Every structure is written in C-alpha cells, then in structure tokens.
C-alpha cells in the first residue's frame, strides 16, 4: 500500500557524486532535503575495509559492487531492425549500486574536456564547413562555455581532491604539464602522483617522437588532503585496487571521502537507502513535478515523497529511464528525429597496444587507477578533421592500474588459454608487459538512442530501458588514426613483441567484454528545446522544478573520462539553483 512521507523542499534521486554535491550545496541554504538511494548504505569502514575489499574474485570478477542485472538492467540491440535482449550478464559497462554510486568504484581519472569540445558543431562548421559532418551525426554545442564552467571544474577538483600537474594556468604554459589543456585558474589541489616504469618508458618514447607527456590527473591522493568541507584523504599506497573496488585507504576520491560525512551533519538533510524511485509525479497541469514515488525495499511498499524540487542524480542510464517512465521530455523517435529524451546516447571509442618485454620488470602489483603518463597531442584540438576524414580525438595513457592475477595476465597472442602451456606463458610473461591506451571520443548519431523496451519488465514492473547502439564509421576512422600514430611510437620502444587492440571497419558493438562505464547522452543539455532535454542549467525544458544531473547531459561524448565534467556541471547547476532558481522558481531559460 502506498504511504506518503512528509513533504520536503528537495528530493534527490541517487546518492552518488552528483546527489552528494547537490545535497551539500542546497543544504547550505537551509532547505529540507531527502536523498533516495536504491542501494545499500556503505562507508570506507566497514564496507571497503582491508583485506576483505581486495578480493579480485568477489569484486573484480563477480562484480560485488555493481548492480545486479536481475534487479536492474537494460535491453540492448545494435539497430532498429534487431530485437533487443536483456543485458543479463554485466560486461561492456558496469553501473554501480549503493551510497556513493560509481564514485566508489571508479579508477579516479579526472579531466576537463578540451576547448573545441564545448562548441563542437560550431567549431567544425567554422573550420571545415558543415559538409564534413556525416549526415546521421547529431553533434551539438554545449549551451555553456568553458569560461563559464571553469570555476565549477575548479571547485569540483578541489572538493574531490585531484592530483595532477597543471600545464596551462591562466594561459601560461607550464613545462611538464599538459600544454593542450584548457586554461585553468590555478594548480591542481595536490601534486601529481609518481608514475610507474611503464609510464616512464612511454613518456620517454613519446617525448622522442615530439609529443608532450605529462602525469595523468586523477582522484588519487598523492599526500594527505583536506577539502573545503573539511573532508579528508590519506596518501595512496599504490595497492592497485581502484576500479571495481572501494578504497580501503581513504586515498581515492569518492563521495565518501569528499562529501558524505559533512553532509550527514546537516540537520536539514536525510537520506534513505533501499528506496528505488519508480517515477516522478506531475502536477495536474503537467508543468511541474510534485515529488517522486519510490519502492521501499525495507517495508515492501510504494511511498510518495512530495517535494518542491526534484533532482535526478542517478546514473545516466537510470536518469534517462526515469525520464522516460515519468514523461519528462518527449521521447526521442529516430524515424522522425523528433523528441529529446533518449536522444544522442553515446559511448567511448578506446583502443591500444600491448607491448611485451622479455627483460623488463614492470612490477604490475604497484599501481593506481589514474597512474601513468598521458599525452594530448592527438586530442581534438590538435587534429585537422577535414584532412583526416573524421571528427574526434583521443588522449593516450600508459600506466598500470593493477597486477591482479585473474584479469591482469596479458599474454602474447597465440599463448595457450589454459593448462600447462598457459601456466608456462604466465610464468614467462607476468610482469613483463605494458599497455598504451587510446581513450577516444564518441560522437552522437541518429541511430544511437534510448527508449522503453516493449517486452521486458523489471521485478517492480517497470519496462526496461532499451539501448540501440552500434559503432559508426567516423569513430572507427578516429581509432584507426590513433593506431597509425601509436604503432611507430610503440615500436620505437623495441618490445620483444607487441599487439594491437583497435576496432576495425565493420566492428559491431559487443556487450560481453568490458569497455568502459562512460555511458553518456539521452538527457542532453542544449540551447534548443527541440534537440535537448534540459537547458543550460540542466533544468528540464518542460518541467521547471526538475533538474537532471550527470553525463546524460553530454551532447556527444568527450575524449576523456566523464567524471570531471559531471562534477563541474553539478556545481554549475547547483549554483544556478541557489543563486537564481530558489528566489523565483521558473524556467531559467
């Protein structure tokens, strides 16, 4: 039976990075806030504590920190002619669950997009003309400039606790940093982490090839750190258990280390776990939300939580799902190109080389999620799209993240995959390989989108969300370009052998191997309500008291890991709500 909770000023759906940020910011205005988290509560101790957490089988292989497809998943197809089937076994991407969300199990890589990326369509049209944009490509400008966002990127980096070396402070290029980054107003809050031998080797080769290597920036503490909320991190010990794990050492940037204990002190903030939001409820006139209805797993009942302001702060897939279930924005229809919710789903185009060195010892058990050296010489700002025949770019990185025995046994092609031969190969090659990764952009297309599945429902009766997604020639050309540039640099390091892993023409999306949990788009921000679901303040165009956070706002995916942008946009939206919307609730655009 439904019960109704006491009305709040604000209800936040999801208590990960963006939910924590919005909770903390809005709590400072004295608003009564409740955050609803579908998963369990968790904290460094006891949930991530040593040595229980560093169990590769439980968390790395059996994905103990991720959502269970039985409870929540999507259906997937590669084009509209296929029948989508449920994603029953997590592979390609790994949505998390529980307080802290994906912010607990990420690798910590933290970036700001390059300058061209905020106004991509205009940038391309100005330089090369609209003619080079493929007919089915739906790239758009962000409705906000880098200069407007800069203070909020800065804020997030200092809250989250990012280690790195600045390459461009207020236009001044700094030797050793990334000379191609957008100008930042000040240094990173912590010095860069030291790199391991693979990163050092790569940096040397890249430098010899005329590139500009710099330490990879990441939410891994290089020293003891206290942020503006008084929250703390301790220096990392390079144990190599970042991605797929919670950090037992208070060293990885997460809502737990950066925000939550400070937020929990606020008497006007509360959060409820095992509260799975079913839909956003609307007023009779359809112009505003009245609150949300959630399923309370603790009592087994539906609960209506009235609120004046609804913040969707779940993972990108769940935010879009909730919008589709609640009628926020017109659902996107690829046949007509009309509709906005679910439009411009995009992903990431990655590739790389593995190099084997008979006589090198890489000690792969020393690592961090954001370890190593990167280059941005092949970033979007630096590529002549007209000449190369694609739109996009990538950053490269070399730096081992872990030496875990089950999943981190790179073997030369042709090695037996089991038995005595496999053991012999492992004995021969463990600790003797390194990778160079190309982390590439992914554009948005008419045929890649999200909608509701007509067939499959979850245990709470909601239709599953359906993902229609496949690789596109433009991005394949981008990644093949990266291969052509990386091959000579890798070869210059004289490995015993090397092998590539780049997608080739005709590659079809395969949901089985892990690729990346950088699902973006579907609730895109824009200047035009016909092609975006939310305005420049992440406010739903059609229902002004709903704000939609997260990577769903990206009109296409950037060449970087999304968290820096997600955090920056969260502070940007929080600022608009605090300084403008609360005084006079209305459509801000």
């Amino acid at each position: 039976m439904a019960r109704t909770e006491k009305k709040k000023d604000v209800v936040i759906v999801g208590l990960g990075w963006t939910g924590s940020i919005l909770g903390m910011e809005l709590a400072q205005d004295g608003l009564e806030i409740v955050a609803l988290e579908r998963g369990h509560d968790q904290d460094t101790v006891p949930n991530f504590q040593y040595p229980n957490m560093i169990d590769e089988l439980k968390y790395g292989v059996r994905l103990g920190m991720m959502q269970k497809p039985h409870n929540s998943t999507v259906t997937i197809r590669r084009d509209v002619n296929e029948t989508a089937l449920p994603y029953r076994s997590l592979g390609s991407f790994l949505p998390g669950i529980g307080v802290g969300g994906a912010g607990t199990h990420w690798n910590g890589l933290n970036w700001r997009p390059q300058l061209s990326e905020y106004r991509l369509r205009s940038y391309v049209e100005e330089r090369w003309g609209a003619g080079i944009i493929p007919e089915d490509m739906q790239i758009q400008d962000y409705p906000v400039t880098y200069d407007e966002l800069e203070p909020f990127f800065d804020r997030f980096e200092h809250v989250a606790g990012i280690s790195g070396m600045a390459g461009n402070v207020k236009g001044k290029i700094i030797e050793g940093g990334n000379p191609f980054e957008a100008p930042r107003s000040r240094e990173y809050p912590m010095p860069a982490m030291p790199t391991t031998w693979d990163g050092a080797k790569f940096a040397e080769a890249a430098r010899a090839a005329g590139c500009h290597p710099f330490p990879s920036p990441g939410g891994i503490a290089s020293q003891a750190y206290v942020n503006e909320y008084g929250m703390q991190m301790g220096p990392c010990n390079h144990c190599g258990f970042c991605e797929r794990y919670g950090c037992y050492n208070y060293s990885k940037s997460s809502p737990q280390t950066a925000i939550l204990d400070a937020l929990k002190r606020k008497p006007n903030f509360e959060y409820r776990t095992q509260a799975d939001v079913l839909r956003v409820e609307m007023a009779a006139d359809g112009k505003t939300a009245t609150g949300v209805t959630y399923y309370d797993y603790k009592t087994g009942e539906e609960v209506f939580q009235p609120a004046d302001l609804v913040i969707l702060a779940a993972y990108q897939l769940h935010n879009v799902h909730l919008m589709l279930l609640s009628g926020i924005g017109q659902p996107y229809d690829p046949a007509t190109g009309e509709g906005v919710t679910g439009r411009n789903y995009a992903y990431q185009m990655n590739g790389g080389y593995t190099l084997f060195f008979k006589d090198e010892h890489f000690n792969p058990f020393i690592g961090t999620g954001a370890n190593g050296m990167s280059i941005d010489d092949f970033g979007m700002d630096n590529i002549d799209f007209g000449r190369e025949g694609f739109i996009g770019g990538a950053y490269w990185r070399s730096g081992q993240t872990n030496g875990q025995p089950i999943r981190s046994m790179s073997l030369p092609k042709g090695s037996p995959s089991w038995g005595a031969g496999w053991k012999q190969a492992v004995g021969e090659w463990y600790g003797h390989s390194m990778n160079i990764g190309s982390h590439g952009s992914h554009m948005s297309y008419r045929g890649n989108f999200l909608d509701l599945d007509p067939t499959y429902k979850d245990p709470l009766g909601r239709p599953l969300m359906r993902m229609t997604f496949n690789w596109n020639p433009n991005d394949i050309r981008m990644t093949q370009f990266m291969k052509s540039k990386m091959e000579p640099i890798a070869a210059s390091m004289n490995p015993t052998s090397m092998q590539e892993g780049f997608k080739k023409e005709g590659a079809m999306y395969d949901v089985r191997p892990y690729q990346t949990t950088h699902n973006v788009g579907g609730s895109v921000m824009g200047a035009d309500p016909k092609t975006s679901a939310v305005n420049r303040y992440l406010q739903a165009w059609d229902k002004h008291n709903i704000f939609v956070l997260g990577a769903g706002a990206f009109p296409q995916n950037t060449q970087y890991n999304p968290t820096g942008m997600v955090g920056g946009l969260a502070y940007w939206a929080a600022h608009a709500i605090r300084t403008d919307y609360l005084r006079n609730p209305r459509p801000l655009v």
Partner: protein
Amino acid sequence: MKKLIRVLGVLVVLGIVALLAFIFVPVQRTGPATQLAADFKPAKGQGEYVMRAGDCLACHTTEGGKPFAGGRAIQSPMGAIWTTNITPDKETGIGNWTLDDFRAALYDGVTPNGTHLYPAMPYENYRKMSEEDIVALYDYFMNEVEPVSNKVEETKLAFPFNLRFGLRAWNWLAANYEPGFKPVQGQDEQFNRGKYLVEGAGHCAACHSPRNLFMAQDGIDDTSKAFLTGGEIDGYSAPDLRGNNSASQKWTTEQMAAYLSTARNAHSTATGEMMLVVRDSLQYMTKEDNMAIATYLKTISGGQLLKQAPPIEVTETEKMLTEAKADMPLGPRLYLDNCGGCHFVTGKGAPEIFPELDGNSLVTAKSPKGLISVILHGAELPSTADRPMKLRMQGYDNRLSDEEISALATFLREGWNNQAPAVSAADVKAVRDLPKH
C-alpha cells in the same frame, strides 16, 4: 585506676560524639567564591557552553539515552558508580535544587540532604569554577534542559566504601582549598583562561594526574609537581602532558588546539576516552579557548615552539621494513601486511588522517591496553565541525591471533624511536575478553 577509667570513658564518649558529629552534623557548604551583582544574568548560551566545558553530558547520559537523565555506570576499583539524573525533573532529578544546593554539589560534593557524592563527580576540580559559570550552569539546567523522569540505579559499593560519610575525611585531603579561580599574576589572559579551563571545568587532572595514596588527584593545579604527569583510567594510560616528550612539548600550540577541536592533527588522533572528550566536550569550545588550553599546556610543560621540524633520520626499523627480507620477524611482517599501507615504513603516517606511531603516546603507554584495544577493535574519530569525517581504523580481532597481536604490538612499542616493554599474548587475551563498549 578509677581516674584512668573515667578519662578513658570520657574519651570514648567524646569519640562517639565526634563520630556521630562526623556522620550526622551537616557539612558546612561553601558559599559563592565571589559576590555577583544582584542583577547578574548569564549571557545567552553561556550555561550550555560551561556544560560542554565540564562535559556533564558524557557521564550523566547513557549511550542513546535522554540527555542528562543519568544511569551510566562509571567503573571504579570499588564497583560501579551510577551517575545521577541531573535534569530539572522534581522527583527524580534536580528540579528542587536551589543555586546553593547546586553549588554545594560542584564545590563540596554534597547533595541537598547532605549525602556525599563519590568523587567520580570531579568536584575536586569543579571547585575552581567561577561563580559566574556556576550560575550560568545552574540556569542552563533549570531552564534549558528537558526534565526527564528517570530513577537511576542506586550506587552500592562494597564495605567500607558504602559508608559515604567517610568521604568527609577524604574531602579534607582532596577538596579543602579556597573555592574559585585565582589568575596567576604576570601571566597573560590567554594563559589564565587556559589554566581556568584545564584545572576547573575541564577537569583534565581527573585522568591526566596520577592518584595519591588516598586515590585523590595528585595535584589539582600546576603548583603540584605531579599535576598532569599522566594517570590511569580503567586500566588505560592517560598520557603525561607535562614531561619530556609529552605532546605539550612536541606539538605546536596550533597543533594541540587542532587536536582538541577535531580529534586529529599533524601527529596523532584521539582514541578511547580522549576521543569521547573531544566528541562531547572540546569540539564545542571556541577556537580561542582551545588555543588558550594549548598555550597553558605548552607553558607549564616548559615546551618550546619548534622553529623547524627535526631532521628526518632513517631508523633501523624503516630500513628493515623497506628491505622486507624473507626472514623478517613476525611483528614487522604483520606490520607490513596490515598497517604499513597507512602508517608507512617510516611509522610517520600522514597528517590528520593516519597517526604517527613513532613516538605515539598510545603506542608507548605504560599500560598496553589502549594499543591492544585499537588493534583489536579499531578506532573511530568523532565528526566535528572543522573535520566532519568519522575516520575509522578497522579492527583486526578476526584476522590476528593473540600471539600475532602481541608480536605486532611489541614491534610497535620497540620500533623506530619507541622504547616500551613488550606485550604478551596474555595481555592481548585479557583485552580481547573484555566486553566491547
């Protein structure tokens, strides 16, 4: 002969009269230390602030219970002393107490009907409190605390400690000084404010001073040599705050103040009872007051502000841990496997988050009970305004055996620059067998 018997008889009678008088003649109650103006009114919030300074809440409230309703057992060598209900409830609390009654409890340790309080109530120290603070505190309890009807368990200590009148004699030894606080001439206001808080409401000496033969605090102010030179509470060592290598000497005044406000600083973190003191009392003190306390401690310890950090020398322990040879003994090996990730081979940890183990007073305490307890059960820092994170060290009770913990604790007590006696497996077992708090 007859005369002798008569004299003896008179003496016996006199003795009996004296004894009866000792038992039954009401104790002379101490009046105000200073006369306040007739229209004196405590400032808003002053009473609550004094309550925090005196940490009344901590003892007079059970875990999760109604504030000040009493009923918490304070363990003493003579048995459990149950704290009383000090809410303004008229039947079970102090609702009928006058200001004079209230002052007598704080100054003389007697209740309105003349019953002596056990000195678990630190009236030895509260006797230093100013009349202004007493009035403010009284006003707070009467007007701002919710009355709670809660009849608490009666304290029943074993004979002869159940004869409370005996405390009258004890008080002649322990609490017979002039009430109120006298600032030291020639010291500045900050020193004297710190002294007032430490010696009076803060009752630091209750734990940090040794006890004399009569279980009284060996020194309630800095004119006594033993004052704050370290004591014991429930088998745990409360560190020396004045001697060589005490925190007051080694830490800067700012670092000490940060420790008091947030339970953490560049060197260490507060555990056990001190963590509770920060949680319930010190974090509510103003920055100025915690600086005053730190300044006072720095001054009476004779400590100098270090102009620069001492040079870092690579210790034998660090070398051994870095080399990590296969034949390394059990203690250091366990350290690398369980502790080194945060506290590092240097034993220096990291500021405000991973406490130093080299030179840590908990590690080298006379009683290893605190160290063993932290290894077994971990520790949690309180959430404070400046440092809201409830930093937790996990416990190792389900991972390490008594023998292993004894090897590890012994290593810690002898490692780096530490020099403290070894710990036995029996020591560990004794702590493991204690009921968990």
